[in-house]
């Protein structure tokens, strides 16, 4: 029998993996992977809490579609973000022949 804590543990593990990737990786695509993993950890938390702890409206009716609604918005937003990041990576590669973020210093003051 799974409880809410199990899903929170999975979400925390995903978030920790994402943090590890953000700290250690320097390839721009790996950073995108890490960010996507962290976004998914947050989405999982949303769904788990909305399923196990529904939210009661002032009128007395119980709504637990709220977390799912937010996750739908979040997934759409993450897709837009991924498209823009990939375009930026392609442009950076075209300009510098490199996707190592520590080498992309043309904006540095």
């Amino acid at each position, binding site marked *: 029998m799974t409880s809410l*804590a199990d899903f929170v543990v999975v979400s925390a593990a995903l978030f*920790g993996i994402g943090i590890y990737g953000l700290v250690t990786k320097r390839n721009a695509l790996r950073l995108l992977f890490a960010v996507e993993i962290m976004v998914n950890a947050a989405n999982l938390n949303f769904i788990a809490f909305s399923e196990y702890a529904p939210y009661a409206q002032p009128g007395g009716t119980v*709504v637990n579609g709220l977390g*799912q609604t937010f996750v739908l918005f979040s997934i*759409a937003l993450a897709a837009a973000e991924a498209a823009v990041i990939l375009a930026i990576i*392609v442009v950076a590669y075209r300009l510098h022949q490199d996707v190592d973020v520590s080498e992309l210093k043309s904006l540095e003051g």
Partner: protein
Amino acid sequence: MVDFVFLGMMAVTVGGALVALEAEEIVYGAIGLAGSLFGVASLFFLLDAPYVAVFQVTVYVGAVAVLILFTVMLVRQEKWAKELPATAPTRLLGALTGLAVAIALSLAAVSSDLSNVTAYTNTATFIQIGQLISTQYSSVLEVLALVLAASIVGALTLSRTDKEEPGA
């Protein structure tokens, strides 16, 4: 009683995330990321959210992962493989930070009352989600549509090449 379905999905999700970050070839990393996103979608199924799960498979596995794969294959392969491995202190720091955050959050969840919470039986229907999206949060939906349009225009503008450039 251990739930083996949940354990398998958890293994796919966490293992896919590790493969995404640690695979030598970045193509395998992209495939690992797709597996991890698929695992999250299956966890959504387990949480009685089939609509979100299908949406996740459609958008993430179907669009984002394929987009990443195409980007990896469009650009020359050896340049992507040139990634220098992080220095040992950085790796240690990253692993320690990630582990500390994950263990702290997990311990907080396990030691709290959350492990006693059992599933709520009355799950949300498609109609409820649709009503929430189209009434209470319709303005969010419209702003989101604008953001998507702007991001597509931005991505197209960024990746446009000037054809008259000599020798390009």
